[in-house]
């Protein structure tokens, strides 16, 4: 024997279980970390690879009885087992009890391991049942299990509460819980030992029966009087009944009223529901204490009868008993106390907390029991440290995030559990595997901190190098930084050949981020030609601004020398951008025609400014300023024209200086000039913003009117709906003053208009006539001739869908320069 005492007491109840610990003269009842209740329902569920113990399992008891088990304590020591459908196997009462004990271990906030405990058993338990309880304790990792009868434990709690020794003699322990009733005769025998002399009980009588009576006999009849119901009670009580949800609500209201009637003479039940005819019932029912007491009296009297039976059987008069000790939650009802006292003729003792008394008494008993050496000597070596590599989004706007992890080390036979710190989520206990995943629901606009635990075979904590998951939701972004500016790719604008920006990653995107887009090559790059090149320029700055006003953060040049074959105009390239949390930009270009991939990592500390590009952009900027001056004068906007003329002097100087730079210039002039170029470009953007928007607005209005007309005359329901949706955005986009957004909206309208037009015979015929006139230029004359003939036939036979297909085929036979007639040559060589 060691000098250490056991100290832990456990009430392993039929309905609820409790764990307490004696420490320096006081007993602490541990609370469930989830919900902070002192009691744990003795219910175990197996749902979707999770083990659920307690409240969550109890919730599913009635709806999923094939996977959830309760009251298994009644079967302890029998050969019966419970078939669990979701597992495809059975669980014994011992295994189920062990799971409850393992869950209780998790209540011990001090982190102590539970190697020894006093576990209580009903007075009625025989040796086999007692041994089964011991076995359950051992399966839960409790090496030393000392059993104690529940009435004795309650009596010890009472004696310690009163701070005096129990006098020699007899008393009754009356235990009326949520679902069971037990009464035991306890006596101090000659040698001063406490002993349970006799007991009686009913496994199907408890507080839940009172609630049901109140709902059934009081609330339901009143509800029937308030509304029109057919066959209400059966429809309420049947799991498939129409009113089963209302039944659950009635039971809750009944329980609430029952509690209220413990300290008030009347209680109100506030009910809102609909009846069979759909009418709303909004009623308040008053229940008096006497009404309730009359209702439950037969049930309470049943318990009194058992008290009398014990007295008769042991030839005792009420006067032979010192008191009746009231335990179990239902003894909080004043009527129960009063009725038992009146009928039995014995004073009742209600000095102890009836829900935790048994565990508290067990803890007092445990304080006097020494831990056997074996409990420590036989301690299993702690599991080897586990390494968990976790992958999850640290910041998100989603309502839930997937948590993935790879586990290495000795994980076999272990479990894991994830609980949200605010108490709103518990994964349950799940088997640990090499790879695990779990959906984690998140509280909006908040930090969500989850505790990750690895549990050993007996659910003891196992050392692991990963303990906490932190996910910021919504407005918080500390778990991942945001992109401060848009990241864009510079492309050529097909109408004018001017440079413009295409958005790759939007400002405020949470990092890391990635995006992928496809662009079209707008000039042919011949294999081996050094002078032919695509210029992939990655820009940082608003996508709405002029490219010249943004910073170049990356540059990738693809020349003919790098290609394995010719890259014809019109082929696609796929551009992929990845931005790390530390803002490294990884830029990948996949050239489909050559099946080649080019990759470049742009470190944020390295600023790429090729002098050739700088000179070109400065030249373009100067041309642009000239154009803008002309336009401003044409529009009589002399104020802007004057400002632009001032600006032109700066840009001219810039262009001259940039032209002087050699490609290998080693000074920092290129950076200074690039800054100056951006400042000038931003100024151009500012001075011409209104003009750009006005131009876009005119184009938008023209396209909108055209589209409305077309959809109105030829559109189908889906197209009309689509048009409505696009036009709903009109006021928002116009108010934003953002030319790019307006341009996008115009493009969408244009696409819709073209879709409708392709069903309009006049349009198809005019398009066909145009293509037919271009036939001599087409690439494959034989095919072109055959298509034109087929087109003429389709027109004659009014086969419009066929004509549309022919038009498309003819379009593809046109030389590419004719496909994009108005395209001017730009610098980058890529378009959208």
């Amino acid at each position, binding site marked *: 024997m060691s000098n250490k005492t056991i100290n832990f007491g456990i009430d392993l109840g039929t309905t609820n279980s409790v764990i307490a610990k004696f420490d320096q003269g006081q007993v602490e009842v541990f609370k469930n970390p989830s*919900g902070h209740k002192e009691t744990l329902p003795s219910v175990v569920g197996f749902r979707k690879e999770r083990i659920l113990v307690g409240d969550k399992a109890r*919730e*599913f008891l009635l709806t999923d009885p094939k996977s959830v088990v309760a009251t298994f304590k009644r079967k302890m020591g029998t050969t019966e087992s419970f078939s669990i459908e979701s597992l495809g196997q059975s669980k014994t009462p011992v295994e189920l009890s062990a799971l409850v004990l393992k869950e209780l271990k998790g209540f011990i906030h001090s982190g102590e391991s539970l190697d020894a405990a006093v576990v209580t058993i009903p007075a009625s338990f025989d040796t086999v049942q007692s041994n089964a309880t011991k076995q359950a304790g051992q399966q839960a990792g409790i090496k030393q299990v000392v059993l104690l009868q529940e009435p004795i434990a309650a009596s010890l709690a009472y004696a310690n509460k009163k701070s005096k020794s129990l006098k020699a003699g007899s008393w009754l322990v009356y235990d009326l819980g949520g679902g069971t009733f037990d009464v035991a005769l306890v006596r101090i025998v000659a040698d001063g030992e406490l002993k349970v002399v006799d007991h009686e009980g009913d496994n199907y009588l408890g507080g839940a029966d009172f609630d049901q009576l109140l709902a059934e006999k009081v609330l339901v009849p009143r509800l029937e009087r308030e509304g029109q119901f057919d066959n209400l009670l059966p429809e309420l009580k049947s799991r498939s009944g129409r009113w*089963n949800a209302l039944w659950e609500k009635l039971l809750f209201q009944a329980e609430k009223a029952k509690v209220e009637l413990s300290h008030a003479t009347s209680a109100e039940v506030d009910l809102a529901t609909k009846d069979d005819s759909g009418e709303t019932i909004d009623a308040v029912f008053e229940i008096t204490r006497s009404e309730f007491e009359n209702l439950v009296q037969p049930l309470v009297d049943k318990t009194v009868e058992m008290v009398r039976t014990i007295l008769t059987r042991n030839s005792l008069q009420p006067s032979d008993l010192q008191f009746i000790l009231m335990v179990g939650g239902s003894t909080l009802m004043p009527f129960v106390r009063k009725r038992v006292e009146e009928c039995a003729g014995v004073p009742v003792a209600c000095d102890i907390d009836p829900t935790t008394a048994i565990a508290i008494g067990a803890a007092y008993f445990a304080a006097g029991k020494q831990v056997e050496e074996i409990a420590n000597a036989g301690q299993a070596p702690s599991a080897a440290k586990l390494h968990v590599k976790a992958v999850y989004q640290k910041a998100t706007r989603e309502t839930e995030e997937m948590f993935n992890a790879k586990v290495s080390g000795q994980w076999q036979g272990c479990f894991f559990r994830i609980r949200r710190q605010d108490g709103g989520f518990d994964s349950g206990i799940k088997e640990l595997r090499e790879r695990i995943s779990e959906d984690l629901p998140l509280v909006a606009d908040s930090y969500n901190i989850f505790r990750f635990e690895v549990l050993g075979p007996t659910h003891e904590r196992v050392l692991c190098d990963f303990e906490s998951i932190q996910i910021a939701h919504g407005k918080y972004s500390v778990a991942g930084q945001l992109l401060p500016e848009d990241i864009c790719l510079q492309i050529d604008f097909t109408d004018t050949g001017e440079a413009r920006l295409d958005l790759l990653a939007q400002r405020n995107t949470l990092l890391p981020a990635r995006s992928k887009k496809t662009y079209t090559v707008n000039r042919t790059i011949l294999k081996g030609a050094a002078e032919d090149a695509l210029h992939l320029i990655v820009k940082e700055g608003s996508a709405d601004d002029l490219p010249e006003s943004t910073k170049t953060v990356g540059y990738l040049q693809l020349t003919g020398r790098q290609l394995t074959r010719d890259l014809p105009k019109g082929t696609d390239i796929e551009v992929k951008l990845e931005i790390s949390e530390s803002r490294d930009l990884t830029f990948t270009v996949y050239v489909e025609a050559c099946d080649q991939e080019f990759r470049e990592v742009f470190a944020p500390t390295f600023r790429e400014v090729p002098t050739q590009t700088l000179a070109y952009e400065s030249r373009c900027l100067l041309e642009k300023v000239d154009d803008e001056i002309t336009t401003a004068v044409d529009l009589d906007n002399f104020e802007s024209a004057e400002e632009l003329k001032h600006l032109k002097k700066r840009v001219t100087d810039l262009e001259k200086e940039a032209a002087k730079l050699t490609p290998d210039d080693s000074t920092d002039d290129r950076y200074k000039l690039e800054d100056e170029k951006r400042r000038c470009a931003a100024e151009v953007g500012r001075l011409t913003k209104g003009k750009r928007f006005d131009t876009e607005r005119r184009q938008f209005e023209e396209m909108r009117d055209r589209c409305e007309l077309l959809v109105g005359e030829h559109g189908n329901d889906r197209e009309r709906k689509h048009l409505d949706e696009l036009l709903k955005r009109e006021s928002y986009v116009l108010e934003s003053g953002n030319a790019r957004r307006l341009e996008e909206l115009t493009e969408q309208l244009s696409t819709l208009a073209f879709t409708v037009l392709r069903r309009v015979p006049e349009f198809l015929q005019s398009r066909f006539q145009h293509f037919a006139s271009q036939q001599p230029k087409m690439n494959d004359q034989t095919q072109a001739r055959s298509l034109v003939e087929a087109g003429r036939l389709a027109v004659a036979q009014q086969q419009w869908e066929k004509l549309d297909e022919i038009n498309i085929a003819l379009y593809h036979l046109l030389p590419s320069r004719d496909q994009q007639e108005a395209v001017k040559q730009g610098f980058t060589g890529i378009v959208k």
Partner: protein
Amino acid sequence: MHLEVQPKSLFRLLNQIFELERKATRLADGENVLRQVRRMKELFEEDFQLTYEDPTGQPFNETRTDVEARLAGDSAENLVIVETLKPVIRFSHGPTSSIVQKGIVVAGTRTEQP
């Protein structure tokens, strides 16, 4: 004046405000009442960092421990919260919060409550 307020009293008050809000929502001209209800909720949030949530309509499964559910019907899958009898009450402390009162709800399939 020193007035000590017990947290449970505040929770009880919030539960009553929740009931009030629910009843006012059902009234045809409940907007006037709802304005005051919203003001009361704001005061609770500003002065006590307490807010409540009505999870009605949200999905329910066995991992949700912010509510205690009474399940209706004979199906245990694809459940939603069909009625909230007591709201979830949260106490905010800086950027995080804790559940100080679990909600009490009835969960079932969507068609459970006619």
